[in-house]
């Protein structure tokens, strides 16, 4: 016979939840903090390059590997270049690549997802198998394959990230379109004589645009990380040009001899802005879909 369930002794102790007001204010603070960091990064990459031009080729071997000081707040690297200035230039490359690649990836995803969802049937199945194929191959591997076909530079990196990261957006958009397709307002449009294309462009795409936009913003940190990884591997941005990935790659040797600054500061500039962008994207998602708690998707 079954044991009788133990009588409830006290209110069950669930995970602790802060009072709603506190939670809301910490969330607002988190969003404000993230927004401030993103604004700071944007200001830095917009204002610093015109004010402090950088000669990508210049070296000063008399000042190599100087620790952080008043003259060089982030120190100098193994050939005497200022780490702070190069980091800001590197951040500029990362942000541009991140934004453009994320937009490209989401644009492709929006197009593919909408087409698959709106046309449906055999075309949908075919496209989704293609998506599965892309999902099955590791992103970085396929990205390396794509950049390897071109001369190093910004555009191959953007192409590499854009062409490998559209699948998640395509999946989201397709699922959304499939659920919208059977709504009465689509029936009403069809009955009014709208063509398949018109229904897709006028009714379905506008409805999924917020989701696709959110996917794009969530993609930006991921794209930045890919850019850094490719550059670190020597496949992305040319080695002499300042990018956060190439800087960390160049400074690897000095890290083991105790000179931490040429690695740490560019590394922080990868981590902090991407976390800030992800924080903002998370807040946006909570607005679109309040029931799901935000999480970092990378």
């Amino acid at each position: 016979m079954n044991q009788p369930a133990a009588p409830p002794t006290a209110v069950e102790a669930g995970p602790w939840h802060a009072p709603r007001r506190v939670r809301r204010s910490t969330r607002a603070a988190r969003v404000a903090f993230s927004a401030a960091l993103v604004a700071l990064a944007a200001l830095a990459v917009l204002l610093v390059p015109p004010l402090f031009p950088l000669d990508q080729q210049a070296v000063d071997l008399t000042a190599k590997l100087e620790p952080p000081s008043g003259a060089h707040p982030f120190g100098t690297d193994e050939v005497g270049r200022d780490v702070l200035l190069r980091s800001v230039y590197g951040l500029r490359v990362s942000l541009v690549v991140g934004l453009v690649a994320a937009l490209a990836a989401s644009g492709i995803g929006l197009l593919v997802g909408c087409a698959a969802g709106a046309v449906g049937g055999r075309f949908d199945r075919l496209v989704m198998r293609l998506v599965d194929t892309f999902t099955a191959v590791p992103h970085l591997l396929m990205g390396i394959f794509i950049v390897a076909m071109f001369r190093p530079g910004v555009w191959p990196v953007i192409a590499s990230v854009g062409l490998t990261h559209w699948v998640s957006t395509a999946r989201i958009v397709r699922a959304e379109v499939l659920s919208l397709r059977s709504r009465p307002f689509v029936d009403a449009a069809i009955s009014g004589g709208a063509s398949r294309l018109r229904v897709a462009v006028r009714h379905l795409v506008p409805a999924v645009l917020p989701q696709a936009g959110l996917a794009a913003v969530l993609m930006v940190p991921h794209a930045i990380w890919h850019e850094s990884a490719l550059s670190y591997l020597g496949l992305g941005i040319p080695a002499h040009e300042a990018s956060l990935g190439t800087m960390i790659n160049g400074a690897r040797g000095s890290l083991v001899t105790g000179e931490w600054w040429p690695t740490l500061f560019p590394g922080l500039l990868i981590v902090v802005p991407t976390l800030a962008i992800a924080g903002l994207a998370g807040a946006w998602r909570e607005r679109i879909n309040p029931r799901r708690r935000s999480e970092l998707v990378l």
Partner: protein
Amino acid sequence: MLELDRVTAGYDRGVPVVADLSLAVGEGEAVGLLGPSGCGKSTLARVAALLHRPWAGTVRLAGEPVTGFRFRAPRAERTRVGVVFQQPRLAADPRLTLGDLIAEPARATGRGAELADRAARLADDIGLTPALLGRRPHEVSDGQLQRACLARALLLRPGLLICDEMTAMLDASTTAALAAVVEEYRREHGAALLAVGHDRVLLRRWCDRVLDFPTGR
């Protein structure tokens, strides 16, 4: 005008929602179809509006059997049937203004400029002020939205109007106003009406003939 011949329809797998049903709506005739909720009235209305392919049976429009449904139905055939749905909130794209909503069938068929005047007149006749036409569905009431949906359904002058519980969400005065508009339209253009609903008194008042939906499925 419309003939359904032994139509069986349903959704993916399982029992059919409408089984072996035949129905005819003559030229200019008003037919009411009465049934409790969940009996398959809306599915039947969607089949009649060429929006849902039946599993079996034939749909004839003006004597010609219809071969395609949804996008496969030729545009000319689709626009010969005007539909007003039960819930205007779901049947109106939330991103369009009421004015765009009414004019959409004209624009979708490439006659936007030609029918702009007719759309404006129709909106005026149906009781929508120009200020309301600039608003979006969430900024107007159910009644105002349903008026826009009816205007939209009448814009291309369909020979058959299908009203699926058109007034179920509305108050008495709006119901009367919409009924008057439908009445006026039918008198002017000799159009047929297929009204689906659960209110016997209302359907009796609107229709020449009221049929009970066969429930023995």
